[in-house]
């Protein structure tokens, strides 16, 4: 954190002969990363408070006592000389590694962590070359399912307590704990109950050994089999950055990818585990007309016939993770031949388009007070919920909640919860202006639609008024992945449309109102799968999932982020924007003959101001680091 006056005092120290200047208060282990010196750690994690439990990071520090000290708990000091490679430090770390391995089973060949395991890497780089372990190892029943999605292997556990601390510090869920003591200690869930937190999956990434592994991904692939790209999660409007892992053109794993602007390296279980649709064997791969397979040409003709002359009785339902590029194509169609058609977005809130200068997620770190209105953030915007928790518990922000029900944020003992009657959040917000918790700014106001129970127009006015009076900024909490993009393109407004009364319906993804309107006489479905709620459509077009498609999303703070597909769709699968452009061309729309997505993106940036970021082509992403540890010693 910078000092109040903006200046960050720095400290210069020497690590293995390298001079490094870092902000005051930096821990030695972080300073060493700056000069690419690896200090191995198990218990330390850069997003959690240091505990100094594993003792893996022992280094020699002078001036100081003649004994190794933990680099993960010691802050830097001016003139400090750190030696990671002195005989004392090297043997101290090798001793600790030998201890870690004393009870660790030799089942690396069947362990899902094998190949990307810090314990393996450290043993190669810092351990003794031979083993002197001559005693039998501890045994536990394994693997133990902690939930439907996570398995626990106690034999492999090195008891770094990262998972339990994550549950205590980051999510406040406290679902994991240690039982027994000494060499008999083991990790267990509270009262043996299965994990229920929506944030549980992060402990898989956190675990420095193979003790916590995914059951969804279990034994799917070894790390070296997979190719990966850094992409964006498609499940909600937060836009967490993720790493997508591919093997044999199947999406086999989704892990987090740290972006401190948004997710700080955490993702929720929806993003981590709900990716399997794209691999389903019953996926639609070929267009169908009236139940039989057809060519794209035939399917497009049938579609055009179906929507011919529908005018304002044409309804278009679009999926929540529609890309900006597809939205732009739809916008062109709605400007032209499909003028008057009604559009519905699946999974959206009833929030109106955002005002000027909305809050960014990273601004929560600087907030002194946070007001959460009419939203269960853990459900609506999970990773923003973690950011609120961090601001409150680690950065000292005060928390005020306006919601009818008990929320998980109420676990903070000093949180003030104003229980409004459903639908009366606006009135409750109007009374907040003189509230004692909001005396000190900046104030961050996060507001949702109460899952449809609130009058969002009135609430928007109340929030805007509160923001001006207490000197804060607000952020509407959209739910659908690209809801903000759809609002920007003007495809949808603050009032959700249920498409009732439409005679021809194009349904891209699951139907937005939950089902196809009864009035529809012609239905075209464009999706990965045929779902029960689709009924029996006249035309079926195969669509691409978020791991295969090119494009970008606008997240709830208005940030445009580009997708990097890891799968390569095989014909006749086609990109969504290609399909829409062909439709436009067949409808004689001019300027829809784009030769590639870049041309389309430039056109979109010119046409819609909020899509201006599309014009700058995606930056070549740095290679994502799948597991967040310091770089290996060069």
């Amino acid at each position, binding site marked *: 954190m910078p000092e109040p006056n903006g200046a960050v005092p720095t400290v210069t120290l020497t690590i293995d002969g390298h001079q490094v200047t870092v902000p005051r208060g930096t821990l030695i282990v972080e300073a060493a990363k700056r000069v690419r010196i690896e200090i191995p750690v198990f218990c330390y994690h850069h997003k959690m408070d240091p505990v100094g439990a594993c003792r893996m990071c022992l280094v020699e520090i002078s001036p100081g006592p003649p004994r190794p000290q933990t680099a993960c708990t010691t802050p830097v000091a001016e003139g400090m000389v750190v030696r990671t490679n002195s005989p004392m430090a090297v043997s101290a770390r090798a001793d600790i590694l030998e201890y870690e391995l004393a009870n660790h089973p030799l*089942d690396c*060949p*069947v362990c899902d962590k*094998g190949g990307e395991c810090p314990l393996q890497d450290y043993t190669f780089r810092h351990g003794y070359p031979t083993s002197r372990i001559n005693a039998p190892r501890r045994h536990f029943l*394994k*693997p133990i399912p902690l939930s439907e999605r996570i398995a626990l292997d106690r034999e492999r556990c090195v008891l770094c307590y990262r998972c339990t601390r994550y549950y205590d510090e980051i999510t406040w869920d406290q679902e994991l704990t240690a039982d027994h003591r000494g060499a008999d200690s083991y990790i267990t869930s509270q009262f043996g109950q299965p994990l229920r937190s929506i944030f549980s999956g992060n402990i898989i990434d956190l675990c420095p050994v193979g003790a916590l592994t995914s059951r969804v991904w*279990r*034994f*799917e692939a*070894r790390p*070296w*089999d997979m190719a990966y790209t850094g992409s964006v999660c498609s499940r909600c409007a937060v836009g967490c950055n993720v790493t997508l892992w591919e093997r044999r053109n199947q999406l086999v794993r989704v892990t987090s990818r740290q972006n401190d602007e948004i997710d700080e390296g955490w993702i929720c279980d929806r993003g981590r585990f709900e990716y399997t649709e794209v691999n389903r064997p019953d996926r639609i791969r070929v267009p169908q007309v009236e139940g039989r397979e057809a060519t794209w040409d035939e399917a497009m003709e049938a579609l055009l016939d179906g929507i011919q002359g529908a005018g304002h009785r044409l309804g278009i339902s679009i999926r929540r993770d529609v890309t900006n590029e597809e939205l732009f194509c739809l916008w062109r169609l709605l400007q032209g031949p499909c003028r008057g058609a009604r559009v519905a977005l699946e999974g959206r809130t009833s929030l109106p388009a955002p005002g000027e200068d909305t809050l960014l997620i990273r601004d929560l770190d600087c907030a002194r007070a946070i007001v959460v209105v009419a939203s269960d953030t853990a459900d609506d915007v999970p990773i923003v919920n973690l950011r609120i928790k961090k601001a409150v518990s680690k950065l000292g922000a005060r928390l005020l909640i306006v919601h009818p029900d008990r929320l998980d944020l109420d676990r903070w003992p000093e949180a003030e919860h104003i229980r409004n009657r459903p639908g009366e959040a606006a009135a409750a917000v109007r009374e907040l202006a003189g509230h004692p918790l909001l005396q000190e700014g900046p104030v961050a106001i996060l507001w949702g639609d109460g899952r449809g129970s609130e009058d969002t127009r009135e609430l928007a006015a109340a929030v805007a008024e509160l923001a001006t009076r207490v000197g804060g900024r607000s952020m509407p909490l959209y739910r659908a992945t690209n809801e903000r993009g759809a609002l920007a393109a003007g495809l949808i407004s603050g009032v959700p449309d249920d498409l009732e009364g439409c005679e021809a319906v194009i349904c891209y993804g699951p139907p937005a109102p939950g089902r196809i309107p009864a009035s529809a006489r012609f239905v075209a479905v464009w999706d990965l799968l045929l779902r029960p709620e689709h009924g029996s459509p006249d035309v079926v077009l195969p669509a691409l999932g978020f791991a295969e498609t090119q494009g970008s999303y606008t997240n709830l703070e208005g940030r445009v982020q580009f997708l990097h597909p890891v799968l390569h769709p095989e014909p006749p699968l086609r990109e969504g924007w290609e399909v829409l452009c062909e439709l436009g061309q067949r409808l004689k729309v001019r300027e829809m003959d784009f030769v590639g997505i870049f041309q389309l993106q430039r056109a979109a940036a010119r046409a819609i101001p909020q899509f201006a970021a599309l014009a700058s082509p995606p930056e070549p992403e740095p290679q994502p680091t799948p597991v967040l540890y310091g770089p290996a010693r060069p």
Partner: protein
Amino acid sequence: MTDETERPARRNPLQDVAALAQGLRTTLAEVMRPVVTTQYPEEKSPRAERYRGRHYLRRYDNGLERCIGCELCAAACPVGCILVIAAENTEDHRVSPGERYAKVYEINMLRCIFCGYCEEACPVQAIVLGPEYELSDVSRERFIYTKDMLLEPNPAQQEPIVVR
């Protein structure tokens, strides 16, 4: 052959007979020697104990497969001819002793160079290179050896061998 001026001097006919006899002796001696030619399709020459031929996937005595699907053979393979897709053993469907088994195990014999690295990498001695070398076939597809081709027969299900 105009210049036959250097014709050898006429030799003693006995010398010719002697030379003939000498040649015959070599021939006759060879007749008595043991035959070294093997009649290949009918007869097979012996293989060295460590000969690296066709792969086998071994089983334990109780019939469980040794292979745990760890893919270390595939990782060690210099030509990338091995494909392993693993799956989890369950109580109802137990294939190998531990948690994991190979659901798919394929070797592309056209690519394989029989270096034996897979054998060395295997932590459970599941894959071994056997003595068989007659691997020719009539189509490329048939060179993809699948798991059921590679697995040795299940001793638990075999007829007991009756020794006479």
